[in-house]
């Protein structure tokens, strides 16, 4: 039996211990999160949501190059998941290992049972909140093997992806999404605004918007709150849910920005989006109050002055006819493409900037020493180590291809544009999901492949260069060798190539800064060669084969089409212009058009050039 003294001492000790413990706890609070976050070497982002998240309208979509009968069975293609979607542009750094995880280079591939993935991308064009936990029918109206095929595919419910994440022994760090626009039927609102004439039905759009706002307040808001909570419950409390807002779609200018959308229509739609965003922010706040790690990221400021039909638009215009990858290629009404009034590639980058800033902020909260990625993500490798300083002069500007808008900023990037009909397009020539940039300068000129990006590996910088034809005539080889020498060529015949140049292909060049040719047809212009020093060039030799007579012949062929092409270009954006040029390019050629087109399509440059030269 313990005596009273012993009991009292024991009580005093226990109380002292509790006292000390409480003082300790009050000084060093326990983290709020109850579950441990992922280890930094196993970072995961899950991209959910609707078309603003899937990247609708921004080619290339995953699996778009499959034969059509296979495409309709591809979840990625049916959902129009873009290789340039904003959630794929997000990055997470691991300070300890120096590894930077770039999402679109580590996408989960179910066909490979990919356990090393860091990005699980299941956003889907047309998705509503209900499709988080029920499958989404996706209609297509296509011509397949000469037969009209009108049917539906089904997109797996989006939350099912977390089972896969778990099977791979991973946990989501972040879940990103935009959601709710389809619940409210914003697509129909845009169609109404585009196809109706305001002056003959002035009350219609606002009445419809009022109905939508009423729907938002009565049902959609509740559905969205439930959706956010469900996502959090499924992903686990360690996952931060980032809900991105929607941008204003149209300029607020009172001037006639575009004759399809009146000032009243633009204002009404923009106001509805502002209200919608305010509601989303309020719903997110409610979730936070209830302990859910949900965050709202507004994007409107980032899109300001870049709305649809502005000179530097981040949002697609209305496409009145289907684009090549639209799911609905045939049908009567409505006729506009799903690409219409969706963020373009610049819009995706704007989204990525907004969401990346929130991720960096949250990472900093977790780890004050976190170093956010300080550059826009290179598109060429999943993992890279921080590079050592380059020995050659440092580039002062980014050559990240996705960021280049040649039409607007050519001089900033060292290009000199000589002709009025300039276009560019991004094509994944080499089939590695890394687009090459193709610039078109000069009447009827085909596209000149340029640098598509760079990556670092073992301390060396690798730059990608590709080879194609100029004016479909002779191959041009922009390339650099050994990090110090650059060869600029124009109209170089194959037999003129130095022996050490291995032909027409795509190459990775080690330790180079950048290579680009600035010339076009007979307008070849090397006056900006000096500018290349800005990018660390050392110009050693210019090749010019002196094939002016053949150039003149080729250009004669094109002259008859010049006006048409020019007119077309003035009226349509570069991508449509490019398609037009390509189509007409083929119609010119009666003898080898199909062969040329086929070669061009699969980007067998050598064969394409062969066919075109045969024709010429």
């Amino acid at each position, binding site marked *: 039996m313990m005596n*009273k*003294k012993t009991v*009292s*001492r024991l*009580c*005093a000790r226990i*109380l*002292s211990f*509790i*006292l000390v413990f*409480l003082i300790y*706890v*009050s000084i060093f*609070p326990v983290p709020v999160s109850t579950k441990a976050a992922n280890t930094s070497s196993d970072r995961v982002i899950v991209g959910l949501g609707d078309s603003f998240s899937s990247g609708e309208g921004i080619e290339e979509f995953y699996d778009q190059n499959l034969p059509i009968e296979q495409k309709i069975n591809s979840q990625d293609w049916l959902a129009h998941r873009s290789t340039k979607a904003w959630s794929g542009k997000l990055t997470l750094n691991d300070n300890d290992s120096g590894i930077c995880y770039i999402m679109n280079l580590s996408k989960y591939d179910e066909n490979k049972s990919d356990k090393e993935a860091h990005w699980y991308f299941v956003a889907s064009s047309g998705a509503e909140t209900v499709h988080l936990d029920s499958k989404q029918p996706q209609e297509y109206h296509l011509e397949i093997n000469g037969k009209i095929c009108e049917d539906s595919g089904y997109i797996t419910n989006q939350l099912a992806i977390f089972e896969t994440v778990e099977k791979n022994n991973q946990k989501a760090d972040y879940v990103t999404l935009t959601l709710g626009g389809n619940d409210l039927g914003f697509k129909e609102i845009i169609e109404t605004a*585009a*196809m*109706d*004439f*305001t*002056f*003959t*039905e*002035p*009350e*219609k759009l*606002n*009445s*419809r*918007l*009022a109905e939508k*706002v009423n729907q938002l*307040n009565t049902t959609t808001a509740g559905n969205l709150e439930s959706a956010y909570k469900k996502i959090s419950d499924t992903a686990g409390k360690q996952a931060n849910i980032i809900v991105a807002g929607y941008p204003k779609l149209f300029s607020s200018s009172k*001037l*006639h*920005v*575009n*004759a*399809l959308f*009146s000032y*009243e229509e633009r204002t*009404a739609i923009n*106001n*509805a989006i502002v*209200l919608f965003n305010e*509601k989303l922010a*309020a719903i997110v*706040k*409610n979730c*936070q*109050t209830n*302990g859910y790690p949900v965050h709202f990221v507004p994007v409107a400021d980032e899109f300001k002055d870049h709305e649809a039909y502005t000179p530097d638009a981040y949002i697609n*215009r*209305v496409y*009145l*006819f289907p684009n090549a990858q639209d799911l609905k290629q045939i049908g*009567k*009404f409505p*006729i506009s493409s799903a690409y219409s009034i969706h963020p373009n590639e610049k819009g995706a980058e704007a989204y990525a900037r907004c969401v990346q800033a929130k991720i960096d902020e949250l990472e900093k909260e977790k780890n004050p020493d976190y170093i956010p990625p300080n550059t826009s993500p290179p598109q060429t490798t999943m993992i890279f180590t921080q590079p050592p300083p380059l020995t050659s002069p440092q580039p002062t500007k980014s050559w990240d291809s996705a960021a280049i808008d040649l039409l607007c900023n050519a001089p900033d990037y060292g290009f000199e544009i000589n002709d009025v009909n300039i276009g560019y397009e991004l094509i994944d020539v080499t089939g590695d999901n890394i687009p090459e940039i193709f610039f078109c300068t000069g009447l009827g000129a085909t596209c000149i492949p340029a640098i598509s990006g760079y990556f670092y590996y073992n301390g060396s910088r690798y730059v990608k260069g590709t080879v194609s034809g100029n004016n479909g005539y002779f191959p041009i080889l922009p390339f650099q060798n050994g990090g110090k020498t650059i060869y600029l060529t124009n109209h170089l015949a194959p037999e003129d190539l130095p022996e050490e140049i291995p032909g027409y292909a795509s190459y990775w060049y080690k330790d180079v800064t950048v290579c680009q040719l600035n010339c076009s047809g007979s307008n070849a212009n090397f006056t900006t060669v000096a500018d290349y020093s800005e990018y660390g060039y050392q110009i050693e030799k210019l090749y010019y084969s002196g094939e002016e007579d053949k150039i003149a012949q080729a250009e004669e062929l094109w002259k008859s089409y010049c006006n048409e092409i020019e007119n077309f270009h003035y*009226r*349509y954006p570069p991508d449509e212009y490019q398609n037009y040029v390509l189509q007409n390019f083929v119609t010119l050629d009666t003898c080898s058009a199909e062969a040329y087109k086929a070669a061009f399509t699969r980007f067998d440059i050598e064969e394409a050039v062969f066919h075109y030269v045969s024709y010429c």
Partner: protein
Amino acid sequence: MEKKSTRVLLTTLVCVVCVALIAVVIAIFYYFIYSPPMPEDNTDTYGIEEINAEEYFQEKSTVVSVTPINDSKDIHNEKDATENFSGRGFDNLSIITNYDMDGEYYDDVEISTDSSKKHPFYKTIYISSTNEIWVIMEINGFVFANPISYNEQSQGKAPVLISETETIISYANQSGVFYETIPNDDEVTVITVDRIDAETLEKLTVEEIDKL
């Protein structure tokens, strides 16, 4: 002995008080520093301002006449509207209406070719052989053509509407009236033609409209 146990009890009491005090301090600290924000008021309602048609037309046009739809004798029924469209070469097209005679709005409904049911507003889409898109409207029996392709590519200009008259008929469903107006130049560019039919629209390419 008694004194000692009293001292122990006192010590215990002091400790308990101290612990309670510290607990209160910690509770206050957590309340003010870590307590979540108060629940958001979810009763907010958001709204969109409705258009007042009368003010709209007064501001943007010269109003020629205002006709309640029940007083109009020009409204076609579905059968007549179909004949009107097909007589102009807009054959085999889906003709859509969005309103009943009470001004009630509904999503696109394709009309019947033989119904006597009337609607204040009909429309169809016509695509020309040069792939230019037109929305053809019949409002209170009058026909207008909206050149979608032209207006889509037209920047910095007022929208164009093709009409057979200098006046435009508009429908205000909430007040149930037709407005006959002459739009201000900076609001709508009205191009008048003798007759709106497929043949005329085939000639009115984007380039031709630009010349008018």
